[in-house]
């Protein structure tokens, strides 16, 4: 596949901003609503507490594995991936 550096960087940037938005949501925005979320209880956990203690963390881990796949796909499609 031919190399397209500009498009590669553009797609990489889009992915970065997407990830950054998700990061901001799960780091900050969802925790703004901790008080109303705490009214909901799941398996004993108040939901607002749960999101800060486990929920956001699980999302972060999943996000990073997904990101590593997605970025690799971009690298390959634009012909700038490393040789295996």
């Amino acid at each position, binding site marked *: 596949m031919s190399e397209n550096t500009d498009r590669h960087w553009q797609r990489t940037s889009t992915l970065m901003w997407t990830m950054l938005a998700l*990061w901001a949501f799960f*780091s900050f925005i969802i*925790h703004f609503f901790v008080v109303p979320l705490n009214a909901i209880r799941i398996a*004993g956990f108040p939901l607002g507490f749960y999101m800060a203690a486990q929920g*956001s963390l699980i999302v972060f881990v999943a996000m990073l594995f997904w*990101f590593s796949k997605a970025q690799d796909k971009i690298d390959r499609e634009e012909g700038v991936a*490393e040789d295996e």
Partner: protein
Amino acid sequence: MTTQSSSGGDFTSNLGRVYAIYTGSFLGFVVFIWLLEKLGVPNIYLGYLFVAFTIGVYALIGYISRTMQVSEYYVAGRKVPSFYNGMATAADWMSAASFIGMAGTLYALGYDGLAFILGWTGGYVLVAILIAPYLRKFGAYTVPDFLAARFGGNAARLCGILVLMACSFTYVVAQIVGTGLIGARLLGMPFELAVFVGLVGILVCSMLGGMRAVTWTQVAQYIVLIIAYLVPVMILSTQKFGLPLPQLTYGSVLSEIATREAALGVPAASSHVAPFTRYDPLNFFGLILCLMVGTASLPHVLMRYFTTPSVREARSSVAWTLLFIFILYFTAPAYAAFAKLEVYTNVIGQPLSAVFSNPELGWMRSYGRPGLALMTLCGAPIDTLQATLAACSKIGIANVTEATQITLRMFAIQNDAIVISTPEIAGLPYVVAGLVAAGGLAAALSTADGLLLAIANALSHDIYYKMINKDASTAKRLVIARVLLIIVAILAAWVASTRPDDIVAMVAWAFSLAAAGLFPALVLGIWSKRVNQQGAVAGILAGFFVTLVYLVVTRYYPWFGVEYLGMYSNKNPVTGANLVDLAKLKAENAALYFQSVVPLSHPMANRVGWFSVSNISAGLFGLPVGFIVMYVVSLMTPAPSSELQKFIDEVRRPRGKTMMEEKA
């Protein structure tokens, strides 16, 4: 240059087997100690056996991984698979404070303590998407090296070294203090001896093999620390719910805590799960931001991503790192909840005499004994009933007798005590306590190794090789690197042996300093082609010094902040009242008000600031200042040369050779 045949190839292809055997032997060793305990071998010997065995294994790995090659010494030959680099980085990252102190912080702060959990995990998202893959493509040995190459000059390198030293040295001292405390509290060793053991443990891991040896010992240390962290709380969960998954079962514990809190008359607004009782929202979210951005800028973490075989593996390696860290951090709140329920159930409401007669509360006497005092009744160590009664009368509790029931106000437990005492509170055999000690030691040593290497490499590679003697031979560079490593280690151990309480508290500063000092330069260096050397230098210095001034003034010179920098009293997060009445203090006790280098107990220490932003979130000011100054100064000065522009293009493109490959 191949003075030693590379045994790395064989080793890396057998990693799975090697570490499976290692994990099996470690578990076998734990069972062996348990049998010795059953045979009546005294606890103190069991504790020493744990320390000797684990440090012996780390030393063996360190010896096997010795090397005479520069790239092996600095970046482990770039042969560390992402899975194992993830494990090593997790151990590198999780310090004595994470292992021993985190659960206690959550116990004390409830929901607000989760800022640490979020901050110390979410930062890896920033590492993965903004920084690590690009540093790996660049490929040289240190973070200051990258700054020098990207911004074209040693001025940026020196700024990088300044920030690196400021955040790493206090941090490494705190780790060595950590080994001293673990040895003293859990194993009954003298503090100084435990510090010395820590120093030896660090040097045997790092001196002969540099990054290569540190990597493989950190993997071994991760395995020990995660087993040690999970076992006690899994046993607790099984005892209570028949299910060894404390992370799931502590939902019910939280419900029980809420019931007890209601019965004990704890106001709903300050219950365990209620937000913003210790930090107001600005400080809560500010702390999360500072910890996250700080994580993404700490040199000893970033340098680990130089060691993967490819850019692709650097990315997946960050994901593995976070997974391995997550395993500990999502368990910590469970620890805190189980401990809190235990205290509410078995301590609060008991008569004072029970502490001294009930064998099930024997742990209170053993951890509350004078000299240790990890737990206190009425602010005094738990020694004799008479002493406790006297202490309770003294703090103003009326008509204290041995039948007086223990209240929340009377019983206090130090943060460090939760993890340390859980095995005994749960009535588990001593072998579990020994295991916890070994885990805490592994956490402290692995972090200290990484930090020490970051500091020594900045001195030997950046200052000596790149700035003083560019013609140094390989052999000479490696000798210098090791000599500096030993000097820094001894210096850190010496500072640690003086028991510097302040330095331990200063570790929290490292995150704000790294965030404000390095993050803008790293991110803009990769993501902007316009930022140049002038901007970088100005931005690093501005961000770093704004943060440093805020930290030093609010902690040590509060009067100066109030008089000259427009600071005022921080507010109570619940009531919004001033924490300290500055005008009244100034009028009534001017000597106290104008005191400099104030102790922590001073009424104004850490209690003044701007916008009620507490000391540990100082990066909230430095970070934006760093970004703005860096960008504005860059726009006012010429754009980077076309060579540097090409350099940036190359960093962004995974394909192609590692840019700074050492010529063999």
